[in-house]
């Protein structure tokens, strides 16, 4: 036990990888050299990275098809928007609140459907995402403002002396959240929970037979995924200062799905690359206007033909029992 703890400590503060140091410093230096427009693109790249990571828990780790993830994203964004504009709750306080709201919603909605397999679950979650969007349009209890949405959301701030109000500050906010999520999720991957998830994905019956509580682990994945999407919703809402139902369409769910598939199911660096592809590609090809989606579609098809496992598929070597206990058990991930 002691050994393992030491091992974890080392991994967190590991500067032995020059590539990682290089990438992190590139991310830190990037906004100081480019225009606000390019910073904003990188911001939305961050939002999609976070959304991709959140869906990756459900789709990548456990292999549950979820095409309604935009619903959780919307719940997070609207929780932030409504509580902030009506009751003046600060945005940063609402960050965990949005996560909890989205997670709670996922728990309530997914509990009865969690036993569904494959395509069936996909259809139900697809319906769920659409129902959330339609509910927002119908303005329940005069809360969501109908098709116009909620507007006038504050900037995130700590008192009055530190207000996140510029592109560059938002950039750091989102990427710090993404970095923390990556650290957390990497450690989750290597934990008991992560292994149980992968076990369920590979063979649910075997997992059940070995004593893995399949239902609870699947629900946990949904709750964590939804919570992370709720966090993304919170930051998105405060960045745009308004939320409206057309930000949470079925298309957004599709994009998140693509991010995970392009990157490689269950692979965290893959998700980041997938998010880069999804968020940067449309901007690069915007001059092509009408042909943009055509190019986008063909790129996806080519991608799936030549790299069906994703750009950066997850490699998982066999892990021996002793290596889990030894100090350099780093072959996995």
């Amino acid at each position: 036990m002691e050994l393992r703890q030491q091992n974890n400590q080392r991994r967190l503060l590991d500067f032995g990888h020059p590539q990682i140091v290089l990438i992190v410093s590139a991310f830190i230096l990037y906004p100081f050299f480019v225009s606000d427009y390019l910073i904003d693109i990188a911001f939305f790249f961050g939002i999609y990275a976070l959304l991709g990571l959140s869906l990756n828990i459900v789709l990548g780790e456990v292999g549950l098809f979820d095409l309604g993830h935009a619903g959780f994203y919307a719940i997070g964004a609207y929780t932030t928007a409504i509580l902030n504009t009506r009751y003046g709750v600060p945005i940063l306080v609402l960050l965990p609140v949005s996560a909890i709201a989205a997670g709670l919603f996922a728990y309530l909605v997914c509990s009865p459907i969690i036993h569904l397999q494959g395509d069936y679950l996909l259809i139900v979650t697809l319906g769920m995402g659409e129902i959330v969007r339609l509910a927002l349009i119908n303005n329940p209890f005069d809360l969501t403002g109908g098709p116009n949405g909620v507007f006038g959301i504050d900037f995130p701030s700590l008192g009055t002396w530190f207000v996140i109000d510029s592109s560059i500050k938002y950039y750091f906010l989102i990427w710090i959240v993404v970095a923390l999520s990556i650290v957390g999720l990497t450690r989750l991957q290597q934990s008991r929970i992560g292994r149980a998830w992968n076990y369920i994905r590979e063979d649910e019956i075997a997992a059940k037979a070995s004593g893995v509580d399949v239902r609870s682990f699947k629900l946990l994945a949904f709750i964590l995924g939804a919570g992370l999407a709720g966090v993304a919703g919170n930051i998105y809402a405060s960045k745009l200062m308004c939320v409206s139902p057309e930000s949470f369409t079925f298309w957004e769910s599709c994009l998140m799905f693509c991010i995970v598939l392009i990157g490689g199911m269950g692979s965290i660096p893959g998700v980041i690359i997938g998010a880069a592809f999804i968020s940067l590609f449309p901007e690069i090809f915007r001059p092509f206007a009408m042909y943009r989606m055509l190019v986008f579609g063909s790129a996806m098809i080519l991608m799936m033909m030549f790299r069906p496992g994703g750009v950066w598929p997850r490699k998982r070597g066999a892990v021996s029992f002793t290596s889990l206990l030894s100090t350099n058990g780093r072959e996995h991930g």
Partner: protein
Amino acid sequence: MKLVKCFVVVCGLLSILAPSSVLGESGTVVIGLQGPITGAWAYEGQMAKQSCEIAAELINKKGGILGGKMIELRVVDDAGEPKTGALAAQKLVGQKDVVAAVSTYGSSVCEPASNIYERFKKVNIGYGVTAVRLTQRNFTYFFRTCGRDDSQGQFFADFIPKKFNATRIAIMHDNTAFGKGLAEDTKRALEPMVASRGIQIVYYDAITPGERDFRVPLTNLRESKPDVWYFTGYYAEAALLVSQARSIGITCPFIGGNAAINDEFVKIAGIDIAKGCYMTNEPLPGDLPYQEAREFLASYRDRFGEIPSSPWPIYAADALNIIAHAVDKTGSTDSGVLAKYLRDEVNGVPGITGPIGFTDQGDREGVPFYLYVVDEKGNIVVSR
């Protein structure tokens, strides 16, 4: 070192993104257009782009502005999404030579975009953004050439009592968000006239959409003896209401909101009943009587074969025209000067959609609505 390679590739891609040349050709005035060139509203965006091209071309043909400078249009696509709208606005404000922007179609896209224009102090004029709240934010640089959601009610209040010499007004709605909203706006707009002009709202009630027999509410309506009767719901109920009203002896003019009368209405009610029914509606491009409109639409038809089929693109052309006008008259491209000029000095400048002026909040002054009527043949034409 695979990661390093990836990083290099990403950096390479980003450098492609960097704006290649931010400065326009010397001797041009650059005006931005942010619109949904792709996406669900691409049709609207494309027409707005074409309209702005024509408007710029017409100005350039007449020798440009500021003694010979040409207008250059720079289009950015917001795909009709709030997120992309924010990016598009950020892209335009980053280009120092863009004087002002025509932006955009869709209130929820305009909201985040106009926040950015405001923060970076750039005049932006909306052309298809009707949410009332947009001009209630006390922004300095936001204007719109189109009307607001409550313009129709205002138009009714300004125009109808005079035209029909009516003092007793009945308003009927159908409890839908749209119908009730329009009825409330109309009532609110009429209220100041209650004391000054002796106008009375003698009937204000809702019917239940989907029903077939409206004789009970109509009997109440008859008892209130209205001079005109405004129905703010949809055509299916409107047709039944008019037929049944005529059969129980209500003869006052029927005026429908912009969802009440269409070809379907004429079909259901029959020409005998439908003729002489009125409707408040946004003017379609072909119905505009102004010289500027004729000239603009002629050029548009020459180039693209037909005139815009939606009312909104011509507001984009007018937004471009008024920016050009402001730059020409002030001789300045400074946002502060332009915003002040647009707010304080622009008044009754002839435009394609009629005289242009702005209120202190940045709303269009005057209400771009028309009264349409069903004629003898069942066509819906402008009531002159």
